[in-house]
């Protein structure tokens, strides 16, 4: 009798404790295979054919109509890199994106910690203001920002782009960082205070190492956002030796007779860094957003 009662109770307990993940779920409801693979294949085709097309044009000789890049040539890469100035654009883009990355990460660490660990007057107002900034269109800030940067002498320098990119990306990064910090139990920090650490040392030795996934995600977004920014760079940079890759590309697009092979090679140069960074962080992205949803 007792065994009969206990058996279902035990199985019930395992059901409750099972993590809500389908991968470990032994009896999940599988959709029929065709319902997954057919739409997935179609969508992959839509996603990948454009990537293939630009790669194809960058690698096959001018005038060829072959649909595979054979015979292969790297002539177009040489043309954009040396001839069209992409070596300089690439360097400018990297410098701007890295400074934006550091600025955004450090400022969102500071601010995120304040939002996650302190109650203070004005906190609610600050959150509302931060969310409101998400509605400010970049295109609409071109005119006043141009004036400000001209006044303080940053026009036609990479610093104007670094500042503008950082300010526009910061609100979202700050809120995300606060979420990541909130997920780290405060008891860990308190234990370090008991051991004689101050706030700063406790933060550096206990919180920071646990914050790595969040920092990777936030700094990657800052990098991608800055790398892709076009309008600010178009408006604030005038000399060709200051241009970033998107601006360089846009001038190639605007030329009367476009050299498509070189254009494609320029596009590949521009796309490879962000797609690599993104492939690395996309799992943090989905995890981070899910974790936030559970908490929120």
């Amino acid at each position, binding site marked *: 009798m007792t065994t009969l009662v206990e058996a279902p109770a035990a199985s019930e307990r395992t059901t409750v404790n*099972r993590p*809500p993940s389908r991968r470990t*779920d032994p009896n999940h*409801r599988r959709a029929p295979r065709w319902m997954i693979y057919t*739409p*997935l294949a179609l*969508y992959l085709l839509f996603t990948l054919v*454009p990537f293939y097309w*630009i790669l194809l*044009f960058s690698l096959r000789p001018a005038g060829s109509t072959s649909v595979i890049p054979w015979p292969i040539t790297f002539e177009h890469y040489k043309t954009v890199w040396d001839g069209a100035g992409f070596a300089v654009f690439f360097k400018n883009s990297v410098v701007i994106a890295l400074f934006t990355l550091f600025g955004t990460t450090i*400022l*969102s660490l*500071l*601010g995120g910690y*304040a*939002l996650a*660990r*302190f*109650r*203070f007057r004005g906190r609610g107002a*600050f959150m509302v203001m931060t969310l409101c900034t*998400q*509605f*400010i*269109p*970049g*295109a*609409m*800030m*071109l*005119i*006043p*920002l141009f004036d*400000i940067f001209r006044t303080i002498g940053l026009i036609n320098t990479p610093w104007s782009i670094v500042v*503008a990119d950082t300010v526009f990306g*910061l609100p979202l990064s700050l*809120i*995300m960082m606060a979420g990541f910090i909130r997920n780290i139990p*405060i008891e860990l920090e308190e234990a370090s205070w008991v051991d004689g650490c101050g706030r700063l040392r406790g933060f550096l030795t206990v919180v920071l190492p646990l914050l790595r996934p969040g920092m990777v995600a936030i700094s990657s977004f800052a990098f991608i956002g800055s790398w*892709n920014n076009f*309008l600010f760079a*178009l*408006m604030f940079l005038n000399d060709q030796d200051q241009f970033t890759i998107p601006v360089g590309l*846009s001038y190639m*697009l605007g030329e009367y007779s476009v050299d*498509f092979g070189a*254009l*494609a090679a320029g596009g590949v140069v521009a796309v490879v860094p*962000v*797609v690599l*960074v*993104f*492939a690395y962080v*996309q799992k943090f992205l*989905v995890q981070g*957003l*899910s974790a*936030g*949803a559970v908490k*929120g």
Partner: protein
Amino acid sequence: MAVLQADPAPPVEAVRRRPRERWTPYALLAPTLVLVAVFLLYPIGSVVYYSLFKYNVTKPRSNGFIGLENYQNMLSDQLFWDSLRFTTQWVVVEVGLQLVLGLGLALVINETFVGRSLARSLVFSPWAVAGVLTTTIWLLIYSPTTGFSRYLADIGIGSYGESPLIDSTSAFWAAVLAELWRGVPFFAILLLADLQTISQDLYEAAEVDGAGRMQRFWSVTLPHLRNAIVLSTLLRAVWEFNNVDLLYTLTGGGPGNSTMTLPLYVARMAVDAKEFGYGSALTVSAFLILAIFSIAYLKLSRVGREGQS
């Protein structure tokens, strides 16, 4: 979704404030506050101010205060009204299609199957691609010399030398397709993140009650995703409204201004015409339209929820 939801203040017991820390949070936020004030809040104020001036950087002599003249000109500017109509069309079509495709994609890649993580990386990847780059890629596809049209003509579909960017209707759909390519992953990522928080017990309960696949979708999945859908469509609508990069480089607002959005009109005023005064008046109107739209959207979606429960 933490980003999208009102965020809770830390609980009192988690704070345990120590003496002399009263000013710490302000000190930590100070750099951000200064940057936001100087480069976001002040510019917003100055846009309103400039909108009352004739202000052209290249013609400093005729600049000066003109009151509401920019706004009067705007109301009789046919291109302003046309761009407003096109912006609405652009936002509705883009957000609608991105939501439907993104939801479908999220449901598919939420299933367990061989090669899932590779598939995820691949289908998400266009999200990281810049607007100018999207233009570069799709221009190669649309151009009559490099695009698909000549291969289609080879097998007898269409004729040589055709480009979808020449005609205003096909230019619209060409731009929509290119932006979809880049925009669907946004919805797929956000909705996938939310799908993963649905408790399996709900599906089990629904199954015990005899609910089929479609019924489980309508009665469990969709209600759970409701908040995520409301907020992601709002964010995306604002984003697509403000999206300038792709149209600026792909169609430039053409042919014949048929694909000119309001922010694109502003950008052209700022970058090409240097008409900062009139551009600022257009900016103020776009701000107001966005603000009214956002408030109305949030209000309406809340009313809908109360009606349901």
